[in-house]
């Protein structure tokens, strides 16, 4: 039994007088304890909405419908009432967001924000909490932690803020950490520091990590298993190496072909995916990627493609997948 089992999760925003938007349209994936799972996709693929739905953090508004299941350690998170969900949130499941400045309260010192978590979920008070907070800041690599505790978020740099946020997230030794584009707002050298820190935390504490990102490079270095999302559905799931070595879904192939790589020289043209992410076919009418797909066949339109299960835990949602071995520049290097 996996630690988190998301099954057919769907999120629909319906506005009066407008067509309903299926932000997430039947996403399923699972996360084992101690595993790093990636949710990869471009803007509008539903990766962030998925995480917010699991955490119960979607803004309450009329017309919002969440369907499916998200079973964490035997309890369906989507069926919980607010109270018990708050209990789980922060203690068993924690989250790190993209923008550390807006995730921190600007008028409360860092130390107080960390100790608040410790007080609420671990019942620590006074000196003990302050000591533990300093230890946590030290753990995430913030220099001179005792003094930092008294400082406000705007006094710290972006990288340090993200570290502080991670310190708060891991304060209760959660069993699952969801990181939503944790390094997108940061510079590459700072990104490398933060990714290294997240890897360390996972290795040392056995926390499972769901990594939400658009950056295939980040995924390649971090995740054990990867889910590629497009138009609100998982189009391909695979372990890390097989996915990059032989991507089967044309979208995955396209993504890998369009990223400029540091180890490929000048003059090699990229193979972009034509069109834009706006050119979506609604899933019930066929494969959402069909309008942009170079391997499109008749069967792509009419009914949604079924999930094909292959060996080694791999699955893809495509009727005409890229052949194996995929035509990739493996030999060229």
């Amino acid at each position, binding site marked *: 039994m996996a630690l988190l089992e998301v099954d057919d999760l769907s999120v629909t925003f319906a506005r009066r*007088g407008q067509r309903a938007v299926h932000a997430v349209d039947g996403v399923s994936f699972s996360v084992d304890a101690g595993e790093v799972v990636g949710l990869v996709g471009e803007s509008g693929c539903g990766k962030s909405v998925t995480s917010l739905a699991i955490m119960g953090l979607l803004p309450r508004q009329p017309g919002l419908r969440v369907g499916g299941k998200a079973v964490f350690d035997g309890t369906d998170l989507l069926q919980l009432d607010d109270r018990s969900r708050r209990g789980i949130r922060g203690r068993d499941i924690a989250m790190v967001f993209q923008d550390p400045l807006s995730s921190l309260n600007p008028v409360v010192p860092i130390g107080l924000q960390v100790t608040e978590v410790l007080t609420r979920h671990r019942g620590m008070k006074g000196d003990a909490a302050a000591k533990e907070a300093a230890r946590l800041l030290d753990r995430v690599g913030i220099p001179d932690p005792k003094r930092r505790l008294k400082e406000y978020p705007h006094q710290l740099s972006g990288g340090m803020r993200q570290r502080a946020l991670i310190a708060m997230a891991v304060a209760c030794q959660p069993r699952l950490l969801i990181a939503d584009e944790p390094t997108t707002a940061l510079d590459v050298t700072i990104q490398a520091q933060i990714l290294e820190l997240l890897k360390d935390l996972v290795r040392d504490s056995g926390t499972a990590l769901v990594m939400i990102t658009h950056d295939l490079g980040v995924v390649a270095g971090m995740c054990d298993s990867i889910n590629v999302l497009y138009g609100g559905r998982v189009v391909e799931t695979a372990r890390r190496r097989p996915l990059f070595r032989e991507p089967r879904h044309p979208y995955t192939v396209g993504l890998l072909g369009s990223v400029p790589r540091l180890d490929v020289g000048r003059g090699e043209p990229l193979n972009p995916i034509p*069109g834009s992410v*706006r*050119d*979506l*076919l609604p899933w019930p*009418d066929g494969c959402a990627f*069909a*309008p*942009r797909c170079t*391997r*499109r*066949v*008749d069967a*792509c*339109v*009419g009914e949604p493609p079924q999930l094909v299960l292959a060996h080694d835990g791999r699955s893809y949602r495509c009727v*005409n997948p890229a052949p194996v071995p995929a035509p990739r520049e493996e030999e060229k290097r």
Partner: protein
Amino acid sequence: MTIISGKKREKIDRLAELAAREEERGVSLWQDAFRRLRRNPAAIVGAVILTIFVLVAIVGPVFVPYGPTDTMGIREGVVRVGQGLIPGHSAEHWLGYDHQGRDVFSRMIVGARQTLLVGVVATLIGLAVGALIGGVAGAAAGLGGRWGRWVDTTLMRIIDMLLAMPSLLLAVSIAALLGPSLTTVMIAVGMVSVPVFARLLRGSMIAQSNSDYVLAATSLGVRKSKIALAHVLPNSLAPVIVQATLTLATAIIEAAALSYLGLGNPDSAVPEWGVMLADAQPWLGIRPALAIYPAVAIIITALGFTLLGEAMREALDPKLRK
């Protein structure tokens, strides 16, 4: 790869270019805002109120049953203030008489025109002066370099002084200076809103001046004066227009307040809602309705402008665009 059938390919292409084929012409921001405005019920309520108000103000006086200054109640002996007798509504006089025996309904209708006039003219004065000062300051600060900053600082200190004065006190001083009249009220109310418009436009223009499209125009080699007029100003107007609509509401209330304080038209023969409200004060004990009619009319009209203004703010807010 198999060849895809013509029909299915058509379907895919159609979906892929869904947005592109729907209509031939593009939709400008104003058109887009107007569409959203039409979908907002608050905007519709506001617009209906204002349409009725404007219609009444324009054509109403032609159709009023009695002359607004005709003291028929006294003449006919129906109104006897000394004995506390001011009759209320009847079949002939829908809202009854006032203390001078005039028909209240006719006065309300004719008063609508004065009220609209005061509101619109006062707002226009505020908008014109404020936008001029704010526009010059904003353009100077945003694009003018060192010299521009000096111009901006000077203008803004003047505005700060205006702003530092309590608005009613300012209006009273202006009214005292120019003597009580309708023009005074309009100027006074207009001057009070000058700093608001000036600061709003200036802030908006400075923000726009820092945007990339201004840099892009500069790199195209476009003159600064043209950038200010063709790019910065039009993009800064939305909040000012919203503010103008909201100011119309407060202008009407403020004009009523000034009239009530006796700074308005001394000739109370020309009906105006604020004056009517003031005139009704001594008779509140006998017939409170005399005050309630103009008060309610002022509130509803102000509400109409506010609803429309808020709806416009929403419709023009780029953050709310899909």
